[in-house]
């Protein structure tokens, strides 16, 4: 299948390596947090600032995203005694994380801020569920929802499933190939003490779990949790004074990925998604290609979103994603491990930020695991990936994070170890 015409791109190469992520932090991934999203966000932000070796008073910018299910940046800043020079809360989703990193870079580049925190806080299990259940599901249907929700077509899984069905039809992708994503992410989560689900499951377990909406089984869907997550962005020079080895941002993209974005699939091959367009910016402005990447962090809201993104960002040929995710490449110990924390499928669902946090730790060579810390404060990794073992990727120098919200928008980021 040939792809639609390309469009003009702008790729700001001069920003390469000019900014860094210097702090990462989160709360536990929980169900029944017993806390407000304001409290969750406050703890996550505080942890990320502390991880950077900074003080709250160093932070002068804060960005967050939500879907009407969270607190706002000024509240968190107030609770931590910060005086912000710029704040922005956007209505966002899976493609917001990396896009907001781009915004943070722009704010610093423009001289409006020096240190910017990005957070996401959500009681995604015990309050508003992204899966769509609860009071929100029963709200009156109006506007564009008359052409979706009125047909019982509304949760993310329901909305995205026709994309995957068509992918299977176009390319012969098989359910067991995609189920391998869950099996592999569960292996990774078994080596992550923070993960909500740490039990390893098999491809057969996924296929035997109940159907939610074809082609999605229960275990093809991510785990809804309550949590807060946060990262700290500053310039590469300032990053030298922070606590950890520098993790530099090579390139970032937030692109409305189809020339005509819609959730009704009017445009282009429906089995082609965000990355096909976002990669036109991501790779040129990062100065590397998918073949250079040591570990990926894909937006695994569902098993197949991982496959589609890896394919469309160019980690394998279009139509070969089923083989790519099931041939061992994305497993710890494989050529290019994906979602080494277990991702949304196993660690917890936090709308994309946890995979950025994980890749920062991978690039610091400090993915927290069972390996001991030496007297120099550095981990002595065993690279033994058996259950309960290490989850550090050997010689991890370059990572890619792929963010997805729907077939029309995407954002992504490449980071490197200094």
């Amino acid at each position, binding site marked *: 299948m*040939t792809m*639609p*015409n390309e469009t003009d791109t702008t790729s700001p190469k001069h920003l390469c390596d000019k900014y860094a992520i210097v702090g990462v932090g989160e709360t536990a991934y929980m169900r029944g947090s017993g806390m407000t999203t304001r409290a969750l966000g406050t703890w996550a932000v505080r942890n990320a600032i502390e991880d950077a070796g900074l003080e709250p008073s160093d932070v002068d910018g804060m960005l967050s995203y939500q879907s009407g299910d969270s607190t706002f940046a000024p509240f968190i800043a107030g609770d931590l005694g910060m005086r912000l020079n710029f704040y922005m809360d956007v209505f966002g989703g899976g493609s917001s994380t990396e896009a907001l990193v781009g915004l943070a870079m722009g704010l610093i580049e423009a001289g409006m801020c020096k240190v910017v925190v990005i957070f996401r806080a959500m009681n995604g299990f015990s309050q508003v569920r992204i*899966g*769509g*259940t609860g009071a929100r*599901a*029963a*709200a*009156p*249907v*109006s*506007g*564009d929802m*008359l*052409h*979706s*929700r*009125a*047909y*019982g*077509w*509304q*949760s993310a899984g*329901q909305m995205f*499933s*026709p*994309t995957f*069905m*068509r992918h*299977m*039809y176009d390319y012969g992708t*098989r*359910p067991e190939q995609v189920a391998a994503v869950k099996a592999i992410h569960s292996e990774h989560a078994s080596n992550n003490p923070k993960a909500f689900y740490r039990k390893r499951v098999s491809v057969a377990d996924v*296929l035997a779990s*109940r*159907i*939610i*909406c*074809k*082609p999605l089984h229960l275990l093809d869907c991510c785990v809804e949790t309550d949590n807060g997550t946060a990262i700290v962005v500053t310039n590469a020079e300032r990053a030298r004074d922070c606590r950890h080895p520098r993790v530099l941002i090579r390139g970032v993209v937030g692109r409305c990925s189809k020339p*005509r974005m*819609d959730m*009704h*699939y*009017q*445009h*282009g*091959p*429906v089995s082609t998604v965000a990355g096909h367009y976002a990669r036109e910016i991501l790779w040129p402005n990062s100065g590397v290609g998918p073949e250079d990447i040591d570990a990926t962090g894909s937006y695994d809201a569902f098993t197949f979103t991982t496959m589609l993104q890896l394919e469309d960002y160019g980690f394998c040929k279009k139509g070969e994603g089923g083989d790519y995710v099931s041939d061992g490449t994305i497993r710890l110990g494989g050529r290019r491990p994906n979602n080494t924390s277990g991702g949304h499928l196993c660690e917890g669902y936090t709308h994309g930020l946890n995979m950025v946090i994980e890749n920062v730790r991978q690039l610091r060579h400090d993915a927290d695991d069972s390996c001991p810390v030496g007297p120099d404060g550095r981990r002595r990794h065993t690279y033994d990936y058996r259950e309960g073992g290490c989850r550090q990727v050997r010689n991890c120098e370059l990572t890619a994070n792929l963010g997805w919200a729907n077939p029309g928008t995407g954002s992504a980021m490449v980071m490197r170890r200094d």
Partner: protein
Amino acid sequence: MAIQATYLGMPLDINDLDVENLAYFKHCAAHDFHLQRCGACGLLRYPPTTACPWCASPKSEWIAVEGRGAVHSYTEVHHAIQPAFRNHTPYLVLLVDLDTQRGKPGEHEALRVVGNLVTPQGRLAPPEMVRRVGIGTRVRMVFSDVAPGLALPQWTLDEGASQPASPWRYPQE
């Protein structure tokens, strides 16, 4: 005129400001499918919008469009999120390529009109009918009446069309 109605126990609401949807559903209520045709580039579009997604022109007119096509993709919902649908699982959500304007403006484009698989009378299809339909199935439009001024366009098997010997279905069944 604003419309408030209930469909399968689900509240539907079109307010006075939503002139595009009011016009769209008024035609549907007469069981007469209409779409906007751009006054500049001449392309049809779905769902209703204020400007043309292909050329940004604000000018459009409503024209009658034949409700026939083939299933482009689908999902079969077993776990309903919308409470109204809980007693109707499994149900199909279909993306149907209309025969009209298929392959325009580009080879991957079509008017892909959403709907459920329903009986010819417009009721959500029973499980044995759900199991017969997949990618490639030929369908025709019927309507589910909701209220005066409001009916939902839906899809049912096109009995008059030649059907694929076995439409593509999710393999793990």
